[in-house]
């Protein structure tokens, strides 16, 4: 196995771990979205690493990267849109306070 690839993948895995932990442990919507962005960053790193070290001729990887970036952006946009709506109706974007719906 190519050592550089392993390093990149390890960094990616670390980013993923941090992101997932953040997304699962944070209670603030904005912080959760930040965790999600970290996970996506890990995905980006993986993609680029695989492309660079294993499949340098595959252009699809670059397109995938662009698409993932777009996903990051729109997810953030909609996330903040909803955060604002929530803020206006409730004054807080804490998940802990979201307990109205249950059964």
């Amino acid at each position, binding site marked *: 196995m190519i050592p550089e690839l392993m390093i990149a993948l390890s960094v990616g895995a670390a980013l993923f771990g941090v992101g997932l932990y953040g*997304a699962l442990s944070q209670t603030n919507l904005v912080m959760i979205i930040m965790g*999600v962005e970290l*996970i996506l960053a890990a995905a980006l790193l993986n993609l680029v690493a695989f492309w660079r070290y294993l499949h340098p001729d595959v252009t699809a990887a670059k397109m995938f990267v662009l698409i993932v970036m777009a*996903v990051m952006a729109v997810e953030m946009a909609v996330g903040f849109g*909803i955060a604002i709506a929530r803020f206006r109706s*409730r004054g807080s974007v804490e998940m802990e306070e979201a307990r109205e719906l249950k059964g």
Partner: protein
Amino acid sequence: MGRDLALLAPELTLAAAAMLMIVAEMFRAARLVLAIGLAGLAAATLLTLPMLSVDATVFGGTYRIDLISGWAKLILLPGTALSLLLVRAEITGRPREGSVQSLVVLVTLGALMLSGAGDMMVVVIGVVLTGLGSFALVAWPRDDAATEAAMKYLVFGAVTGSVMIYGLTFWFGGTGSTLFSELGQLQGQTLVTIAGLIAIIVGLGYKGSLVPFHFWAPDAYQGAPVSIAAYLSVITKAAAFFAFAQVLRDLPRDGGWPLALAVIAAATMTYGYLAALVQTNLVRLIAYSSVAQSGYFLMGVVALGASGFAVPGILVFAAAYVAMNLGAFAVVLLAGRDLGDLEGFGRTRPWLGAAMVVFLLSLTGIPPLFGFVGKFYLLSAAVEAGYLWLAIIGVLNSVLALGVYLRLMVPMYRTSSTEHPSEVGAVLTQGTVVVTVLATLLIGLAAGILPGP
């Protein structure tokens, strides 16, 4: 290029319709928005009909025009049209009605992408397109419940979606291609296979509300307007299973994934019905019941590649599910969101009550209703794939299902003083009920028109 565009005619039509709807919404012409949407859906459906027997790919194999995507269109487009009517009935004249309508159509576009996906990127786009649109739809009323529902829905969606993307990168690493048709190359790379598979299960499982990724579903359905809940519960969910079919049918069956999915399927059905048994909110109850229905869908997924019934099973059950669940939600729209609202409903509104009974029996899987045909296909698929135990669990869960649905049926025929006044937009809702009830009753009998193994 020209051929690709011709094959994509339904999708392009729908996209154009969605754009026009947005334009019309700019002029606050809600009726026009609805008209354009319905016309676009109808046109797209008609354009699909001659393409049912096509088996091709476009754009370098990234998008498939095949049996699954063809039938997906036939199922999802009319389902969306009915949803539009329900939306219209529920929120006529409220602010941004047209925006909701346009979003519904856009989400359906995403659902179509999911059902035709031949490439990881298309799946990602499909998941995001359906997801983001859905969040906005749920948040539309902007009150406490809706924003809470949207927030939960979003958090789950964002986390699962990104985990899915991360996992998919490993499949890319393993095959050197983003195409699903190349997944056969994963033969032997167990670790890579599993990584991507977990990702797919997480991402699409969330969309299809499989246990344990279902937590958002009851909350989102409850917080959203009923018509939106109805829409989300059928269209995005069906699309998730079409996507499952597209992705996993090329994956070698040796990774042990059928077994893992089978376990999830069993857990999903059982948990869904058990949770539904204790609900008192009608929307939540149906939400949990639709979680359980996801488990049945998954039986088809489990059998992919091992049984000729798998793909037709998913398609047929999806068609049935769209009809009966939409119908049930339409009745809820007329009856009320609480279980108590059904008290005596069958006596004061006999026809609607009878329709509800039909939907519920169909959801249970009583022949000759449509739901039975779907379940039959799925059970056959599971048995043929060697998952007899799963089929048995599926059958046993029909019993739980009956318990759940009888909780709705029995009070409907109790005498009570609850008033059931007809509401605004009742005509459209009733129209939807009529269409769905006819589909539930008749298509089951005319199952010959459906795809077979």
